[in-house]
């Protein structure tokens, strides 16, 4: 197969393979380690009978391969198992948190990607200006900060100690969509934006700087085009490709970041669900959420590759 379709098919297959191996790792991690779920749940004082009973209930007395097969075939048919914490189907438990997390991530992405691209392009255009220097130092510093440090700092500044303008934690009710809590969303979204913008801005600046020095940009200048037009019509579209790559990696990284951010703001998404399930040793939920986050990573990478092809004229023509 050739062309764009062939490329997409190959990338899809690679994604499926990655997810398969990841599922083995997630499952294996819960098997290969000393101690088992039954003992962890019941504690050291558990009687042998109750341990055996729980092991049977969890399927831990089956051979490992059988257990994996049971789990993965369930996942593929939409049966993620039963939560140990509240005996509900895992798919019911993770449904609403998925909506909450996706809404948070999409909101953060929609704000941070254009913001990062604009900051990076303008920094490159005014290279070594005061604006560029300030952005450079600020993005370097902010990129280094852990999300929970940013989140807690925002809470200190805007929700508790200094000003009490915004809620420090998101108190939400089940069955009510996250879009009904605009005030509760502000601080978590800002935290994630601060986590993504620095990377996007820095890579965008670097690739724009490179492109602004290239021949075709010089050509555009020689044609007498105004500098503004040279930047936004000629340089920026070509600088987007590496930016999309890095941004996708970052959004995928956000899948890890939301775990901490949701815990800081008590935001009822999959990240908080993961933390709570790990504390409760609710393995079916932990496995489902981990696989979900890995799937998100694979999908975002795929989208980044596609976006890269679609925005870079050279690659587009070479594939079609």
């Amino acid at each position, binding site marked *: 197969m050739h062309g764009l379709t062939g490329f997409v098919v190959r990338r899809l297959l690679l994604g499926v393979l*990655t*997810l398969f*191996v*990841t599922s083995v*790792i*997630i499952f294996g*991690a*819960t098997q290969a*380690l*000393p*101690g*088992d779920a039954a003992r*962890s749940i019941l504690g050291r004082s558990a009687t042998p009978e109750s341990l055996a009973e729980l092991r049977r209930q969890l399927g831990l007395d089956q051979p490992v391969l059988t257990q994996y097969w049971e789990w993965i075939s369930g996942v593929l048919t939409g049966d993620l198992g039963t939560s140990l914490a509240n005996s509900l189907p895992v798919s019911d438990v993770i449904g609403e948190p998925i909506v909450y997390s996706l809404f948070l991530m999409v909101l953060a992405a929609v704000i941070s990607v254009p913001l990062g691209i604009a900051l990076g392009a303008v920094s490159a255009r005014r290279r070594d200006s005061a604006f560029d220097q300030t952005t450079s130092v600020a993005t*370097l*510093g902010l*990129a*280094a*900060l*852990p999300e*929970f*440090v940013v989140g*807690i*700092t925002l*809470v*200190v500044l805007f929700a*508790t*100690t200094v000003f*009490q303008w915004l809620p*420090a934690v998101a108190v939400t009710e089940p069955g009510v969509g996250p879009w009904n809590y605009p005030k509760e969303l502000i601080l978590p979204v800002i935290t994630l934006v601060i986590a993504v913008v620095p990377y996007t801005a*820095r*890579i965008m*600046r*670097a*690739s724009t700087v*490179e492109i602004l020095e290239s021949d075709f940009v010089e050509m555009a200048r020689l044609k007498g085009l105004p500098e503004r037009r040279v930047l936004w019509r000629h340089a920026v579209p070509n600088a987007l*490709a*590496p930016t999309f*790559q*890095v941004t996708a*990696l970052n959004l*995928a*990284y956000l899948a890890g*970041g939301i*775990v*901490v951010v949701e815990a800081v703001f008590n935001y009822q998404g999959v990240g908080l669900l*993961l*933390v709570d*399930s*790990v*504390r409760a*040793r*609710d*393995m079916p939920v*932990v*496995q489902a*959420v*981990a696989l979900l*986050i*890995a799937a998100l*990573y694979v999908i975002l990478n795929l989208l980044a590759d596609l976006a890269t092809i679609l925005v870079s004229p050279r690659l587009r023509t070479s594939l079609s």
Partner: protein
Amino acid sequence: MSGVAVADPVEVELDRSEGRRPWRLLLATAWSQHRTKIGVGITLLIVGIALIGPFVAPYEPDQGVEGQFPFSPPSSETWFGTDDLGRDVFSRFLAGGVSVLILAGASTAIGIVLGVAVGLAAAYSRGKLDDVLMRTMDVLLSLPQIVFALVLAATVGPELWLLVLAVGLTTMPRAARVTRGAAVEVVEKDFVRAAEAIGLPRRRILMGEVLPNIASPLIVETTLRMTFNVAVVAGLSFLGFGLQPPAADWGLMINENRNGLTIQPWPVILPVVAIALLTIGTSLIGDGISRAAIGIERGRGRE
């Protein structure tokens, strides 16, 4: 990742530095920049507090101060007040940094060593083994560090060795990519061919010939990974999967005291500022070194 260098390089005059070992030239060039010096200063300050702190803490960090209530404001006895259980905030702050340093340092060391081993093996063997190793590393990347650590913690519980192992294992694929990327060119060089021809054992070739020539990207990668791992380790202990109460630990302190922010913010502010400074310091160092590395590379290219 893309081949675009994020940092602007520093200008390097190579004639002055002929004959120096690559990593020495790198560190000297890095040190010539203000940001590296500021980074080293900040990092040393926090590392100093973390290392010396436990010995100079005025109170027992895990015992309540007599006559003090929980969340007492700062006073002449307790400079930064007390925490949720009436313990001295300043003492807990002084005693609580060393765990972050040790855990992040150990996991970074494990991750870099494993990653370098995998990357070198992949670059040197090429062919099938290369493919298998690097695809495996790609797969490991699909789980964010913190999620991987949480999956392990769900089975075993919050054990410190597990935390180090989890963070180390997730550092490995990132270090392996960088190592392979740099080593793939080096293994093609004449001096490696020569070493092969005179029959040096493979380990001697990799450790003696290849490794010294990829020192620059590895030093950059190590500082970067250290920055990230401080964040991951502190984040995990903030979530309650690091040191367990009543231990003094910066991440744990933030978690224990955030409900008291409106009346007593100090037990949260001190560790938050310390972790922020530590990550900013190490990332300034990393940025300085990577600018120096690109500058040296470009300088060579001009010759």
